[in-house]
């Protein structure tokens, strides 16, 4: 019983850290709300290290995911004949938790991640970065999926590796 409560508290702390870090990553790109790609970056920051283990299992360099996000924007522009101009992607505000303690707002894909994590919370003992990776890897479309594709990552293989890392 107490073990269950402890794990639930750990999961709550992890969710808080995850949301704060996702917001920080979004702001670094001057985005107002974090999307699935920012939750994946936040998962890679978590101290449990399981998100990075999942990436390593499929031979992907987790540190290059941020660059892959920028690259998929550039590739999408090139596809319609636009050579991406040099305009900074960096936002000036790098602080987390700047929303002033109000309701947490995520972009649609970020909400999808949170909802999927909430729906599967009984499988988390406690919540780990690998659980977030599995959820994001399961998303077929969007910036995160295109960034993983730009890295040459097979999303199905990443999802399986994340599920294995979460169980280990």
């Amino acid at each position, binding site marked *: 019983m107490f073990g269950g409560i402890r794990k639930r508290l750990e999961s709550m702390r992890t969710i808080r850290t995850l949301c704060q870090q996702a917001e920080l990553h979004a*702001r670094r790109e*001057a985005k*107002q709300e974090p999307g699935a790609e920012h939750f994946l970056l936040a998962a890679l920051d978590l101290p449990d290290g399981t998100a990075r283990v999942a990436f390593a299992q499929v031979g992907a360099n987790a540190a290059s995911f941020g660059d892959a996000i920028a690259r*998929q*924007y*550039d*590739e*999408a*522009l090139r*596809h*319609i*004949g*636009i*050579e*991406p*101009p040099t*305009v*900074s*992607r960096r*936002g*000036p*505000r790098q602080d987390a938790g*700047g929303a002033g303690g109000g309701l947490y707002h995520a972009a649609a894909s970020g909400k999808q991640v949170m909802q999927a994590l909430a729906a599967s919370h009984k499988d988390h003992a406690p919540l780990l970065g690998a659980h977030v990776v599995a959820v994001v890897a399961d998303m077929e*479309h969007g*910036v995160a999926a*295109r960034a993983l594709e730009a890295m040459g990552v097979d999303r199905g293989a990443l999802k399986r590796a994340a599920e294995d890392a979460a169980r280990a």
Partner: protein
Amino acid sequence: MDELSVLPAPDEPDKALAAVVALRDLADRLERQAVASALRQGWSWARIAQALGVTKQAAHKRLSGTVAGDDHR
């Protein structure tokens, strides 16, 4: 900026939708850069909002936290 020389084929909705998202991202970045530059040159938020075709409140709410050189005018 180059002209649109290659439009996504209608049978490639994933590419076309990715291009829409990338164009929005590019427009947002250009907007932040232009607003930051205007603020540095002493433009008021009212003037910036008029140039962008939005209300001053909307411009300030959406952009004040994401551009450098914000003087909250």
